[in-house]
């Protein structure tokens, strides 16, 4: 069954767009609707409709894999997709604590649908709703030290990592097969900690970590070692961090993580970890297409759009 699942994922992988396809779309030599998976996206669809349809393709691809998976694998495949639900929760948190202007949700809900989430009007109700989901089962809302939205977002993100690690550790079968994936998730989380240190402040993060607890036993991130592990240029990364160019830093990190994931998971291309790799690739395709649609809509240059895309071939 596992082989069938992985073979289907390999089949789906052949349908992913490559660098040349992105370039053709950016140069408007081909439209998105020319690709079979995206043929339902019309030129006259609104910007948000187009973005939603792009993400629906990603969700449908992962849902297809979840449907044909055995039970414990299915949970794992859905957990990969649940990252979108966590993003939706963060979006709703910002909405509640912000100016309550229109926001856009990912068209995905496993435990909380976007329509249900969008009706939650207070922070207390949001935590109550989350407590009824596996993300926050048997967990209390910590006392937030800085009182910022970012600290709450950090907590939500930690809930996700705890949830997926818990899911892998719960099943002996999954734990055996996905040990390298835990290493990848740990590495990914370390990158997140670098980002959160910039957001929450170097002086606050240790106390927040002590207060909230984190899913991995990480005391500190040695930046140079970490970047070397991901084959990221140290000087470039430091420049981005010191000048607060976090978008560029996150893109650099994403490229490094993909390289690292491919390196670690290459010996397992016909095993379950490949599903994780496929998930990254499919998600990146959705993100790239969103960037192209947005960039075109805003009127940015082809070069500017192209420079933000992440290519798997690297």
């Amino acid at each position, binding site marked *: 069954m596992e082989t069938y699942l992985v073979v289907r994922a390999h089949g789906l992988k052949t349908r992913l767009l490559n660098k040349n396809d992105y370039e053709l779309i950016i140069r408007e030599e081909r439209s998105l609707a020319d690709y079979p998976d995206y043929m339902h996206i019309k030129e006259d669809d609104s910007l948000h409709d187009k973005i939603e349809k792009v993400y629906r393709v990603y969700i449908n691809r992962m849902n297809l894999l979840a449907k044909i998976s055995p039970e414990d694998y299915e949970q794992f495949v859905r957990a990969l997709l649940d990252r979108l639900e966590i993003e939706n929760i963060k979006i709703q948190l910002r909405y509640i604590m912000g100016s309550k202007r229109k926001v856009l949700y990912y068209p995905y809900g496993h435990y909380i649908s976007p329509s249900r989430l969008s009706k939650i009007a207070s922070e207390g109700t949001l935590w109550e709703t989350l407590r009824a989901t596996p993300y926050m089962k048997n967990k209390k809302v910590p006392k937030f030290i800085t009182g*910022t939205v970012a600290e709450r977002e950090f907590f939500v993100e930690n809930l996700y990592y705890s949830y997926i690690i818990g899911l892998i550790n719960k099943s002996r079968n999954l734990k055996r097969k996905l040990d390298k994936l835990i290493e990848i998730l740990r590495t990914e989380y370390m990158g997140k900690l670098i980002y959160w240190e910039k957001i929450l402040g170097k002086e606050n993060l240790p106390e927040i970590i002590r207060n909230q607890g984190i899913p991995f036993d990480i005391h500190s991130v040695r930046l140079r070692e970490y970047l070397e592990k991901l084959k990221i240029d140290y000087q470039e990364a430091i420049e981005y961090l010191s000048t607060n160019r976090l978008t560029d830093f996150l893109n650099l990190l994403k490229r490094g993580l993909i390289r690292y994931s491919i390196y670690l998971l290459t010996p397992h291309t016909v095993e379950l970890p490949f599903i994780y790799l496929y998930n990254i690739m499919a998600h990146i395709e959705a993100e790239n297409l969103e960037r192209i649609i*947005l960039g075109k809509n805003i009127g940015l240059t082809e070069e500017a759009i192209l420079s933000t895309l992440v290519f798997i071939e690297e």
Partner: protein
Amino acid sequence: MSSELAFLPASRGTLLLLRRKLQLVKRGKDVLQMRRDQLVKEVFSIMDELKKRPEAEQQYAEASEIVSKIRMSRGEHEFLSISNLATPPKIETVIVSYQGVAVPQARIVIEPDFSKITDPEYRTALEKLWEAVKTMIEVANKEIAVEKLCEQLQYINRVVNSLEKNLIPKLEDALHHIEERVTEEEIEEFVRIKLIGER
């Protein structure tokens, strides 16, 4: 006015009336010319500030491009929700007097609050964009002031021209005509009285 002037009776009373009228119109013209000079001075002083416009546009274009790039790179979902954390500014329209000319002006009543945005990249980009928008508002205020002052100038020019080229020459003509008539009548009267006296 001109048609009225043609039918005025030639008398000393009319002469006095016309002289008073001409004096009043000339004084009015002088006052309007002074006001025109004052407005021109004001327009020129504002024009200096309008030179900021290309710089403001450049500043806005740059800030807008940075925000657009962040929006594209981070995605619409994150961008919209992070923007939600900013409290929007409150801008009102008030009427301000520029040398007595009523000019509508945009006034920032409440500045936007970006304190909830902790991502330094977002925050810096949005703060820069707001600074650019603020400069653009200032420039727009000055532009509308110049527009309204110029409308007023146009009106004053029309009135001054009309006084200078139309009313004053007509009044002077009428005055001159009536002066002649009155003088003629006085000479006639003098001659008649002299003839009666000789008889």
